[in-house]
Every structure is written in structure tokens, then in C-alpha cells.
């Protein structure tokens, strides 16, 4: 299982590189092969405009990784800062910050991201912004909980009584102890951001045509499902394999770093 997970991940990482090296043209239209099933020439078949699905999948996976990395990086930074401050200061600061996260949590799932993306308008930048605006909350919760207990550890108290300032306490004495749990959380969030990106693109809120993204491809594929089932099965299968591989990777990371998964 471990091997499978890593090899799928490696496969998709190589695919990203390969897509760039081979300089495939994901937007080349060939009207003769519209919605063709897989052939020797087009391994994954062709889409509704006769574009090579393999080339588009490779270009789409790049977008997936890009969005996932940016959103995870930004949300983790914001969420960890909020969580550290809330957990460290406690009292009123904690109450206010946690009330704000509670309000964000009152919007189920990706509903708020859908709402933000809807009013901001379609496009990759706005999609990333919408996911960043809503994604920091889980990190804030997680970090706050951990910080609350770490704050009273002896090494933190000792550093404090030796005159260490707040930034030093937070970043040198508390944050390093959070590293492993955050790394595991970030891995899982790569997968969930990819799903969220695909969901928003599926709803037409992400990258606009003709650029390829897996969610937008699935949207088209569902439309042509009756005549070209290979389209939806292949693109969906690719997405599932990547999500699966990342989640499995997260599991192994969790076990290796000995982190209890926060449910």
C-alpha cells in the first residue's frame, strides 16, 4: 500500500514535469477525433472539441498542484498565526478570534468558498482567493487547541521567566512542537483543496476555457457522458487516484511522525 501510494504520487509529479518537457498542446483542436475513445494516437481519447484528453489531464494536474500548494501555504500561515495568538493570550483575544472562526465554521463545507468565488467572479486568482478566505479556519482551531496546552509546559514557562519575548516564545518554543501535526494536516489539506478546486471548477467558478482543469473537464465530460463515457471515467479516475495517493501519504506520515489524527 505504501509503495502504491508513493508510486502514484511520483507518477503524477513526473506527469507534471513531463507535460512541460514534452510541450504538449492541450488546446490543439482536431475536429476529426471529436469524443473519440482511447486509441494508439490519443491514449485517453479526445474531448468534445477533439482535444487530446491526456494532454489536458497533464495540464490540469499542474493547475491542481499549483492551487493546492498556494492555498495550503497561505491558509496554514494565517491559521497558525491566529491559532498561536488565541491559544497564547487566551482570555478576550481568544474569545474574539474563536468567535470569528465559529462564524466561518457555521457555513457548511465549501459553501462559503462557493459564495466568495461567485461574487468575486470566475478565474484562477479569484478561485485561490476564495479558498484562502475560507481555508484558514481549521488550522486556527487545531493550532489554538495545541497552543493552549503547550503554553503551560515547563520549557515555555522557563523561557518566559528568563525574559524571552512573545515572538520568541511562539516561534522558537511552541511552533516547533506543532510542526509534525501541522505537516500531517497540510498533507490532508492538499487533497481537500484539490477536491475543492475541482468542485468550484465543476460549477464553472474556476479556470476559464480554454485552459484545462480537472473540475472543468468533468463538467464537460458529464455533459457528453451518454455518448463518450470514457471521458468522465478517465478524468474522474485520475482525480481519484491522486486524492487517494495523497491521503495514503498523509496516513503514513501520520504514523511515522506519531500524530493522532484530530477528528
Amino acid at each position, binding site marked *: 500500500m505504501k509503495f502504491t501510494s508513493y508510486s502514484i504520487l511520483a507518477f503524477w509529479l513526473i506527469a507534471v514535469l513531463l507535460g512541460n518537457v514534452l510541450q504538449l498542446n492541450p488546446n490543439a483542436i482536431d475536429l476529426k477525433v471529436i469524443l473519440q475513445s482511447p486509441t494508439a494516437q490519443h491514449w485517453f481519447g479526445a474531448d468534445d472539441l477533439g482535444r487530446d484528453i491526456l494532454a489536458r489531464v497533464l495540464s490540469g494536474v499542474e493547475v491542481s498542484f499549483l492551487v493546492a500548494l498556494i492555498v495550503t501555504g497561505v491558509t496554514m500561515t494565517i491559521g497558525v498565526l491566529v491559532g498561536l495568538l488565541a491559544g497564547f493570550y487566551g482570555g478576550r483575544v481568544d474569545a474574539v478570534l474563536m468567535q470569528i472562526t465559529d462564524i466561518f465554521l457555521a*457555513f*457548511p463545507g465549501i459553501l462559503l468558498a462557493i459564495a466568495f468565488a461567485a461574487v468575486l*467572479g470566475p478565474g484562477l486568482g479569484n478561485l485561490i482567493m476564495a479558498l484562502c478566505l475560507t481555508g484558514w479556519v481549521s488550522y486556527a482551531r487545531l493550532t489554538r487547541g495545541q497552543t493552549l496546552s503547550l503554553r503551560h509546559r515547563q520549557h515555555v514557562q522557563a523561557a518566559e521567566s528568563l525574559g524571552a519575548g512573545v515572538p520568541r516564545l511562539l516561534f522558537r518554543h511552541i511552533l516547533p512542537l506543532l510542526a509534525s501535526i501541522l505537516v500531517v494536516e497540510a498533507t490532508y489539506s492538499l487533497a481537500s483543496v484539490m477536491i475543492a478546486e475541482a468542485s468550484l471548477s465543476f460549477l464553472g467558478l474556476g479556470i476559464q476555457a480554454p485552459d484545462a482543469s480537472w473540475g472543468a473537464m468533468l463538467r464537460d465530460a458529464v455533459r457528453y457522458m451518454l455518448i463518450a*463515457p470514457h471521458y468522465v471515467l478517465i478524468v474522474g479516475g485520475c482525480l481519484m487516484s491522486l486524492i487517494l495517493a495523497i491521503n495514503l501519504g498523509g496516513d503514513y506520515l501520520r504514523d511515522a511522525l506519531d500524530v493522532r489524527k484530530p477528528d
Partner: protein
Amino acid sequence: MNIIKRLTSLLTVIFGVLLLTFLLIHLVPGDPVDVMLGESANMADREALRADLGLDQPLVKQFGSYLAKLAQGDLGKSIHTQTPIIDLIQARYPATLKLALLSLLIGIVVGVPLGIFAALKAGHWQDFIVTIVSVRLSAMPAFWLGPVLMLIFAVWLGWLPVSGMDSGSSIILPAVTLGFGLSAILTRMTRTSLLEVLNDDYIRTARAKGLSEQTVILRHALRAALLPIITIVGLQMGSLLAGTVITETIFSWDGVGRLLVESIEKRDYPVTQACVLIVALSYVLVNLATDVLYRLADPRVRHA
């Protein structure tokens, strides 16, 4: 935690949800009236819409009148059809509720027994298979599972309608799509919490009394194991409600989720705003209900 504190935090959350949905329309880049009406609209129409939405008023006053209207059940009018939004929601909400409840039922009916089965077979191959399947498949997004189910059961086998809501069986595919993830999560949760309980002293006592294995599991163990399950069901209602947006779109199910997507496509922002608000408020209420249920189910919390 006392009731007053709980209520204050609930009211703050509701207030925050109202404020955030109110502010949504102000996030529109540029002039929201331009975006909604398009470049070609004439001056009079623009001003009429601007006045109608109250966008010419100061922000605080706008929010005040938004709340005042809301208190009277007035959610504004759709820009495209001029229908009061409350009517649109009333027409669509029952369909979403029906879909969400049936998915919840599917999730529970499939998930809990499978979890019990896995817990009883813990360590055997049956447990291994159930666990692997439930862990992995819970990550399957609706926009992939939905089309696959549609292909298999509607297109290839022809057992169920492809989409729409014309016949009674139309609800089955969307409900299974939506309930699938929940059932996988419930399987895992039931298994874990049952396994934790099964090693407790009182279970040994119950067995020692000579009770049948069925009574021990169903009456003694499952009852204690139910608590985390209730919490998970409550929390998962959120993703269920959000999931209706995509599931309803795939299966052309005329609920609030599809209304939301349609309003986004038409840039009918007041409708978008109202849909987001309704779904979020439903979720807040579900969470409250979960909390109450939890207290009822657990004497330790009740008497704390």
C-alpha cells in the same frame, strides 16, 4: 457549559452569518449593479436597481434595513424574474430537505450496521476490507461518484431515471451519491467507538450474566457507542447540505443547491446571498439540535 453562555455564542454566530452574507454583495469587484445588469443596461434601470438594493445608502444603514426586512421574512427580489426570493426558497427548500434526509437515512442504515459488522470481525479479513473501502471511498467527490452511478444504473442497466424529479425513484441516485460519504464515515466511527466500548468492564459483566451476544452488542455496547456517532452525524450534516449544491446540479434536482448555482450563472446575487444564508442557518440549527440530542443521550453530560 451553561445555557446562557451557549445561547450568547449561538446568537453571535447567527449575527456573524448574517453580516458575512450581507457583505457578500459588497465583495463584487467594481459596481455590483454593472455586473448584474451588464454593460448595456440603461441609466434608469441601474438607478432603480441601486435604490432597490439600497446600495446608495451608507453601509450600516444598509445592514440595518437588511436585518429589518429579514425579520419580516423579506429576502428581497430576484433581479431576473422579480419574484420574491422567499417564494423561490419556499418552492425549492422541501426538495433539498427531502434529499438531505434520505441521504442521512442511507448513511445511517448502511454505515452503522457495517461498522458493527467490522467491529465484531475486528482483525479478520472482513474488517480489513470494510475499513479499507470506507476509508478510501469517503474521499470520493460527488461530481465523480454521481456520474459513475448514473452511468451504471441509469444508462447501462436502465433501472433508474438519469436525472430530473419526475418519478418517485428519481431521488435514489442523488440520495445515494450524497449519502455515500456519510455512510463511509459512519462505518469507521461506529467501528472505532464500538471497539473502544467492547473492552469495558460492564460489557464483561453483561456477558458474565449470560446475556445473549445480540443483547450485549445492541442494548449495552451500541448504546454507549452512539454518542460519538450522534456528533459525527451532526457535523456531517454540514457537508451533506453543502454537497446538495453539486449533487442537485448533476441530477437536475430542483432544490436550493441548484437554485444557488443557477443564480450564480445568472449573476442574480440577491438570490445567491439568500441561498447561502438559508443553508448556513439550517446548518446552525442542525448543530444546535445535535447538541440537545447529545445532552439527552448522555446522562453524564445531562447532569454535569
